[in-house]
């Protein structure tokens, strides 16, 4: 019974996760954490309270920065992938040049150039816009490669069969190629977005009150580094798990028609 076996597999996975989580919690007991302080600061870390200037802060800001950068990165990546797959040498060159430049330099350096160096030539961007631009451009370059490889992995016969049926180009792209490419794009893209969630902590260096920034400043004021940094790590992890669950759903959605392998 494959359905039965799949259920058993899933049960065992959950139990093992639970055991490992308990083990981790038990290990943390030895750290003598000041749980009261964590409980006091958690609403701020999570961003349930607004910052003194009325702006969102903590995890809420982290989520905002990540989602906004995700949308922009996706747009940039689609354009870049189209350029890389195009027969136009100009579009190809622009796409490869951009991808090479932004994959070949550190994200931190990019953030600093946009925020600190551009004002020198008169371009002054706010902390939030600088962060968004840097994250979008950096991750757009990686995501473009992921998209390109997904599109190229769709067998040529699929496009040919669609052409032979007389389907117009946009229908072939959206109904035949994109759904099949997405199945291959979603796992690595999900990994990129989880990684972006964590890299969004880099914008804290520009004084944005996101999760990592708050954790550090609370820690500094009371010297409760262990409490605050562990709390921040836990929140990042929880957010990542949400991302992973979304990814899993999308994988199932676009995996239709592909035989189910155990463990999915």
């Amino acid at each position, binding site marked *: 019974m494959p359905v039965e076996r799949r259920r058993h597999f899933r049960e065992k996975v959950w139990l093992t996760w639970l055991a490992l989580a308990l083990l981790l919690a038990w290990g943390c007991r030895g750290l003598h954490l000041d749980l009261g302080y964590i409980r006091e600061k958690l609403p701020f870390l999570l961003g349930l309270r607004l910052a003194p200037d009325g702006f969102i802060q903590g995890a809420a800001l982290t989520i905002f920065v990540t989602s906004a950068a995700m949308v922009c990165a996706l747009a940039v990546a689609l354009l870049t992938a189209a350029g890389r797959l195009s027969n136009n040498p100009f579009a190809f060159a622009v796409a490869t040049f951009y991808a090479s430049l932004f994959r070949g330099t550190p994200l931190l350096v990019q953030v600093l150039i946009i925020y600190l160096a551009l004002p020198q030539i008169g371009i002054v961007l706010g902390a939030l816009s600088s962060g968004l631009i840097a994250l979008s451009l950096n991750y757009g370059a990686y995501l473009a490669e992921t998209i390109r490889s997904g599109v190229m992995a769709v067998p040529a016969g699929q496009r*040919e*069969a669609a*052409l032979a049926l007389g389907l117009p180009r946009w*229908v072939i792209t959206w109904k035949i190629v994109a759904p099949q490419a997405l199945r291959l794009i979603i796992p690595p893209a999900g990994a990129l977005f989880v990684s972006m969630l964590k890299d969004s902590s880099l914008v804290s260096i520009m004084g944005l009150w996101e999760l990592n920034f708050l954790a550090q400043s609370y820690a500094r004021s009371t010297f409760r580094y262990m409490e605050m940094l562990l709390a921040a790590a836990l929140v990042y992890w929880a957010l990542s798990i949400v991302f992973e669950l979304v990814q899993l759903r999308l994988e199932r959605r676009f995996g239709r*028609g592909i035989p189910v392998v155990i463990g999915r």
Partner: protein
Amino acid sequence: MSLEPAPLQPLVRVTGLDKWHGDVKVLNGVSLELHWHERVVVCGPSGSGKSTLLRCLNGLDLPQAGTVVVDGIELTRASVERVRRQVGMVFQSFNLFPHMTVLDNCTVAPIAVRGLRAAEAREIAHDYLDRVRMARHAHKYPGQLSGGEQQRVAIARALCMNPTLMLLDEPTSALDPEMIQDVLDIVLALAEDGMTMLCVTHEMGFARRVADRVLFMDHGEIVEQGPPGRLFDAPGTDRLRMFLSRRLPGGPIAR
């Protein structure tokens, strides 16, 4: 599919096709006429240009020289979609869309190209799936079907576009032996209904039964053509004689 009176104009007129793949000349001045309701089988050694000839008829390959006219429409970049609407194609590797159910495979083009309403397209699809004896698998995905079943769906998918010409590119070459006859029977029924078809195949018994005419291709040229009986029993060229003897060593062509 009713038998309309055959017009005098041939359905397909191919003149002087030249096709290069890089340095290799795959088609060398191929000319060909296909009449309404005519069943033509193309045979020849691999690399002789059979598939390329088929693919030039619906613009999957574009020749460097020569013209293709299908039902009065000259095949150009501008007219290629109009021609494809009339020409169905069945591939050696089926090429069903794996992320769509059997039914959706058959309705996607009628809805997007012929502008049919979804309900109407489904009805037509069910009719053709029934004809290929796949109606009860309509809800399945291609990955759940055997090769022979997939190929039958691919034939139904092409028929749902109501084509005037069917191109079959080695439709049974990727199938296990026990499934070949199932697919051939479907093609046979199609031929008996009067569908104009051009079929690349190595199934000589099948060629004998359905073909009005057999084309033998070698090195990008049509070397010889005629009714299957004459071609197989009394080949007029050494090249065909050699091809036939290699295909069926020591035995007569299957009847």
